[in-house]
């Protein structure tokens, strides 16, 4: 079943903040060229899990393996250097910066030498625009445009393209479609597929089952900090997953609610 190698693996990871246990015994495998969908309702521990994966938090106990070897990320930068990139809900967070500038923030291309190194605006713009266009966002053609002028989906795409450009192997997407309309969300899902096609391991965090099913190869449902279900594509139906996420709440009520939502 699991032909592809796991890039990142969690083994019995626990995380508690003081007396509060947030994650219990999490074991997960994140494989190359696969999309792992992390499903869970608000407060299920999704964000804490992302923070453990991206090096913001250290697990209280348990192991993180990268390429089969135990690793410990002391700070977010360390995980980034190992190729673990996190893209947050609103993508590029510098609305008033140009596409080229925000793409290269912290890693500016320069020309010149020594203390006279200058920011290479032209090259930054060219690379940034090409990187997003390669992901199929052809509406972006001017690197001087401000990020704040892009649509939500375009911003997400820009952020993903940025992570991929800088050599990410594991892409953690924190609710990338949550704030988007249907069309924009489809846009982002296409980009997720493209990242997967390029061999990245993608962790896709969402509570929208439809979005998860559109791109996921592997699913994990998180309830109150523990993995309640771990299954592969086509092993469960949408209804079953939704039911799982709700944590055993009366199915009929939930169904009605969701049906209502879908028709609205």
């Amino acid at each position: 079943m699991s032909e592809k190698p796991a890039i990142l693996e969690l083994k019995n990871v626990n995380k508690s903040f003081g007396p509060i246990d947030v994650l219990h015994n999490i074991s997960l495998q994140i494989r190359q060229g696969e999309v792992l969908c992390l499903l869970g309702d608000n407060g299920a521990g999704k964000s804490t899990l992302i923070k453990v994966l991206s090096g913001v938090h250290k697990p209280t106990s348990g192991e993180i393996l990268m390429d089969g070897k135990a690793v410990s990320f002391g700070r977010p930068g360390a995980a980034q250097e190992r190729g673990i990139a996190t893209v947050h809900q609103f993508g590029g967070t510098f609305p008033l910066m140009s596409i080229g500038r925000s793409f290269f923030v912290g890693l500016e291309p320069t020309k010149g030498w020594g203390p006279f190194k200058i920011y290479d605006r032209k090259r930054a713009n060219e690379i940034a625009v090409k990187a997003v266009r390669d992901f199929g966002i052809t509406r972006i053609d001017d690197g001087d445009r401000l990020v704040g002028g892009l649509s939500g989906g375009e911003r997400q795409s820009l952020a993903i393209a940025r992570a991929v450009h800088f050599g990410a192997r594991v892409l953690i997407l924190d609710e990338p479609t949550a704030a988007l309309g249907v069309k924009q969300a489809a846009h982002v899902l296409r980009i997720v597929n493209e990242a997967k096609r390029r061999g990245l391991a993608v962790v896709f965090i969402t509570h929208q089952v439809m979005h998860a099913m559109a791109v996921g190869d592997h699913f994990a449902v998180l309830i109150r900090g523990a993995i309640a279900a771990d299954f592969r594509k086509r092993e469960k139906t949408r209804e079953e997953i939704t039911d799982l996420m709700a944590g055993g709440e009366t199915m009929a009520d939930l169904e009605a609610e969701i049906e209502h939502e879908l028709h609205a």
Partner: protein
Amino acid sequence: MTAHPVTSTPTPMANRGRSGLALGRLARRPETGSFLGMVAVFLFFAIFGGSGFLSAAGTASWLSIASEIGIIALPIGLLMIAGELDISVGAVIPAASLTAAIVSGYYGLPDWLGITAALGLGLAIGLINGVFVTRTTIPSLIITIGTMFGTMGLTLGLTVMIAGSTGVSLVPDELTKTLLGQYLGGMFQVTILWWLVYIAALLWLLHISPVGNWIYALGGDKESARNAGIPTKRLTIGLFMLSGFSAAFVGVSQVMVYQSAQVLAGQSFIFNSIMCVVIGGVLLTGGFGSVVGIVFGTITFSIVNQGIYFTSIDPNMGSVIIGALLLIAVLTNDTFRQLALSYSSKKA
């Protein structure tokens, strides 16, 4: 022609939006609003201030004012782009003036020693501001108000204790006078040349060097900037030290020009410099602005400040014009910023 498979090859984009949209491109720059404001104010005073305002002496009067405020407004502007404020400059100016005057005037030590001590003091206060801002979660507005009062109190107390009065005089030597205190052509304060040096240096820092990108990122979103690997703390401390140094520089050049230092000088610089920066199109909450804009804002402010004396308008009304100008500037800058942001989704 051979048949090519029709694939969606990206069209060459290098030249798009260059020629036809030149005007639109200009309208999206942060300094456009402030440029228009500057031209309007200049025309207003050229018409109502007449030949007096346009004369060399008239020009010298606003340029000299502009250079002193400008040297402080530029680093304040960078701090504001990075999302911080520095109120303490108002106290650093007299503190630096008096340090130089006491060391070189009262004690009679060489000028360079007094100047070094004064600039060192500015850097030190900047360092204190920066360390407090990066180590605590207190807004920089509050922290620098605190250091302003601390510096003010120490300046007053120590000056009276050492020199026995609230003013100390200093007669600079020839070299110092030439570099910092002379009037070029009998009317243009030499500070104007230093301002030009400042403009060139900060233009380079903010718009050409990669550090400029860090400053914008810091003001855009501190958390993301840190995650992107930018040394946010060092950068913040550096910017505060730059503003402390610049305020001290203005303090030193004032004492060399006026040959005396007063404890209560410099208060007006706090609001005036912030006003120049805001008129210049810098977003108060950070992340947006330009050096050229700040320069335009400074010139606009100084023209109103001095131009009023060349008109028949009551000079006391000058503040009314400046106040109105500030509001108009913020409104138009908001408009231009929206224009910059909304430029995009026309072909949806």
